[in-house]
């Protein structure tokens, strides 16, 4: 019955989806990769794969290891197609002298894009190698097979292998658009929980991180930042530090102030002195942190219609319900503050950075420091976990600017904890209003959704968007920030996941893009999806209760996507939902569900929590999650991403809020930005629905929104209190009975 009705809706109703196409040819960072084809500009096979001496194969991709395990997953795909063991694979880091340009590592698209490219490239490499073997053996390549790089004829060794066949030569071939890739039923490595390639080096304290890079003659730099984003440096007495021990140079360019010293401690002491002597003009332009909804709705904004579906109402609206939700500004808060090393060797500038995109960074830095892009080289090295656009790019540009004034010696710039908290671009505050019309059965037939948000991407994506860098804005001759851009659907920015996956007949979604940015804002894991899914799924829970439905049943009744329904059914099974406590007694179970971007992984989360009876605080006990991300490349890596996503989202949801006054950021250390600690972390159980016949889907950001909703819904179940603000209000929760 349901199917018939929906088919009718889709064929007779009007469906309007707005795609905001950038008109000037300038793309925001978040849209750039979406428009790169898998191989775009990287079609030389040698860019991706090299058969190296010593029985190794070197794989070079344009995506970077951020702690998400992508290096291992991409190595698995390459090893699978090449028919070599994992031990033969060496993953190269991204270096603008030779790596494929795959833009940023973001938006959970690395397996979908880079994985697809390396799969095709590896299949082509194997085909070429088999042709070479066939020629040498005077046989048809059809009769030959490969086992760990050895060429076999009817399962017998031929004495040939990849390394003998290529003898150190290049492929000198192009990667075709479509290659003869392996049939999935023959996979041996893809689909296995292969251990992460980078973990042993990290537990044995090998040089695994950018901070472990020690170059001869390296000196140490510190920046001295103003107390607020748009403050200006009026004066500073640089002379007072020139005589301090170990100080090599004070760098000032407009409002950019830094010091270089032989030793880290000397750089710290000099920076402290500079900070004391610096006088700043403070604009007092930050909004009231306790009135963010009011500020978002009154600030200058642009209206973007996101989605408008006018279907045939399945019964008329008998009741209208409204609700509003809010999200505070929240920080990436990586465990290490940003760091970079830069060396100005006279004719060229080399930068070692932990940014998400070495190619876009190169273009941006070249413009800021006034070099040709060909004179700048950016090399990726790992730092602490990255969950979006943090301070890495800014630190890289700071180091580059200092190196331009201090040539010949490598400059290692380490931001302080306070630098990172005050200057990283935050995940934007959001305000959301929903109005739902219910029919007589209690199901939703009309849905109006409005959201207000600052941008969710202000990346310095190449020369044209270099003005997004702090360095560019603080210099004596500043580069203005580029105009704010709306990230178009279907990915969306603030509107990511603002369109419900449910089959409501009428859906209208509007984004109000706030173009004022008194606080720096950019991409934080999930972008708008976190607050949108929290809002939609909280409201679904509320309406389910209102309409006397079980929360699972209410969702399933309004979904037609069988994969979505399968995830919810599985979640209900593994969590023993029938044993859900009665509610209102301090024990709560709640669920949240979404398909990330409505395009990639499906994730359902169930949270079990307990309200501490005397303090009234929320204690998370156990989380269950079910994920369908199509073909799973590495099951344990998938579980790790979902576990980590649930725990991080729980931390955002329960604790995290940037603190500021009208003139300065007050969040300066972990004391003023607490995150979830060990004893507060729930047990997490992740179940995977593997679909080897389906394309792999991005999953790294997919748990953030469902987790937030699951917690809020569990709090409601436990107490009868509906919490609508992220982070969830911290005042004492009382029980409804």
């Amino acid at each position, binding site marked *: 019955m349901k199917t018939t009705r929906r088919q009718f809706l889709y064929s007779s109703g009007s469906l309007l989806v707005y795609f905001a196409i950038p008109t000037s040819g300038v793309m925001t960072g978040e849209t750039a990769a979406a428009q790169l084809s898998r191989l775009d500009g990287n079609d030389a096979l040698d860019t991706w794969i090299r058969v190296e001496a010593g029985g190794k194969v070197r794989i070079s991709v344009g995506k970077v290891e951020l*702690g998400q395990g992508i290096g291992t997953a991409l190595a698995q795909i390459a090893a699978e197609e090449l028919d070599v063991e994992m031990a033969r694979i060496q993953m190269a880091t991204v270096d603008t002298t030779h790596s494929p340009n795959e833009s940023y590592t973001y938006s959970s698209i690395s397996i979908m894009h880079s994985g697809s490219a390396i799969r095709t490239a590896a299949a082509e490499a194997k085909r070429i190698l088999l042709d070479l073997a066939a020629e040498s053996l005077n046989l048809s390549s059809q009769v030959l097979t490969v086992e760990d790089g050895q060429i076999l004829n009817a399962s017998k060794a031929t004495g040939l292998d990849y390394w003998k066949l290529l003898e150190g030569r290049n492929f000198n071939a192009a990667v075709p658009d479509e290659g003869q890739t392996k049939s999935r039923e023959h996979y041996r490595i893809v689909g296995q929980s292969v251990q992460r390639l980078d973990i042993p080096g990290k537990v044995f304290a090998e040089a695994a991180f950018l901070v472990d890079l020690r170059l001869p003659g390296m000196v140490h730099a510190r920046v001295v930042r103003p107390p607020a984003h748009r403050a200006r440096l009026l004066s500073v007495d640089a002379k007072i530090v020139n005589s301090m021990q170990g100080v090599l140079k004070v760098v000032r360019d407009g409002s950019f102030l830094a010091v270089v010293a032989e030793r880290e401690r000397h750089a710290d002491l000099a920076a402290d002195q500079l900070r004391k002597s610096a006088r700043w003009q403070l604009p007092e332009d930050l909004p009231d942190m306790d009135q963010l909804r009011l500020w978002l709705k009154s600030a200058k904004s642009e209206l973007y219609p996101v989605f408008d579906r006018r279907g045939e109402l399945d019964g008329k609206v008998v009741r209208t319900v409204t609700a509003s939700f809010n999200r505070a500004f929240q920080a990436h808060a990586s465990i290490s503050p940003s760091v970079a090393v830069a060396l100005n060797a006279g004719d060229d500038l080399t930068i070692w950075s932990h940014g998400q995109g070495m190619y876009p960074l190169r273009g941006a830095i070249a413009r800021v420091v006034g070099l040709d892009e060909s004179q700048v080289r950016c090399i990726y090295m790992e730092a602490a976990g990255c969950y979006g656009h943090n301070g890495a790019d800014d630190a890289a540009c700071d180091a580059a600017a200092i190196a331009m004034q201090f040539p010949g010696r490598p400059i290692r710039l380490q931001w302080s904890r306070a630098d990172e908290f005050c200057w990283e671009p935050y995940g934007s505050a959001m305000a959301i209003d929903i109005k739902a019309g219910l029919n007589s059965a209690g199901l939703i037939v009309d849905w109006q959704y409005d959201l207000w948000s600052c941008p969710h991407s202000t990346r310095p994506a190449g020369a044209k968007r270099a003005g997004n860098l702090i360095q560019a804005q603080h210099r004596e001759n500043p580069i203005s920030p580029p105009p704010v851009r709306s990230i178009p659907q279907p990915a969306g920015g603030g509107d990511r996941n603002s369109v419900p996956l449910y089959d409501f007949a009428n859906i209208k979604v509007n984004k109000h893009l706030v173009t004022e940015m008194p606080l720096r804002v950019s991409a934080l894991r999930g972008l708008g999806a976190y607050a949108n899914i929290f809002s939609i799924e909280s409201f679904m829970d509320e309406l389910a209760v209102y309409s006397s439905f079980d929360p699972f049943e209410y969702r399933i009744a309004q979904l037609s996507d069988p994969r979505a329904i399968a995830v919810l059914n599985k979640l209900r099974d593994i969590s023993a939902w029938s044993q859900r406590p009665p509610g209102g007694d301090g024990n709560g179970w709640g669920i949240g569900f979404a398909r990330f971007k409505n395009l990639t992984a499906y994730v359902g989360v169930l949270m079990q929590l307990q309200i501490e009876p005397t303090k009234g605080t929320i204690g998370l006990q156990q989380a269950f999650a079910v994920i369908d991300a199509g073909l799973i490349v590495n099951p344990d890596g998938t579980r790790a991403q979902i576990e980590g996503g649930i725990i991080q989202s729980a931390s955002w949801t329960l604790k995290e809020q940037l603190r500021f006054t009208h003139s300065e950021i007050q969040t300066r250390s972990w004391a003023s930005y607490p995150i979830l600690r060990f*004893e507060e972390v729930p047990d997490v159980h992740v179940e995977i629905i593997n679909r080897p016949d389906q394309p792999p889907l991005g999953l790294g950001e997919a748990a953030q929104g469902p987790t937030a909703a699951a917690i809020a819904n569990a709090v409601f179940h436990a107490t009868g209190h509906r919490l609508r603000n992220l982070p969830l209000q911290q005042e004492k929760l009382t029980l409804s009975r």
Partner: protein
Amino acid sequence: MIEFTLNGQPVSLDIEPETPLLEALRNDLELNGPKFGCGLAQCGACAVLVEGRSTRSCVTPVSAIAGRKVTTLEGLGSAANPHPLQSAFIAEQAMQCGYCTNGMIITAAALLTTSRHPTKTEIQQALAGNLCRCGAHPRIVRAVQRAADKLAGD
């Protein structure tokens, strides 16, 4: 000149006594284990063992460890001869980025010298001052339990 024992070997450093131990270990002695995370003793990434106790090297002046025994992640074990915690962190894949791992292993090592059979709660309490941002906590706790079982079984 400041002299102390580092990973079983005598070392002497001609640096200012106020220099943070973390800077001495990372920059003068070129060790990778202890990491700079906050410089405020709030996150635990810089932890080292001083006479077997987990100590924040970012706020410890090098003068304070004169004549004492310092053990870093390098000193616990190696790929050829791993400490049970190092093996357990690999077996449990107990990290995402791995930046906090040093502090987790060092603090757990201190725990396991005083508590042979720590409960899950005891492990969580021992690691309460160590921050992980990626959300690897359950895996880290399992790794410490696994190492404790291994040590108890030997």
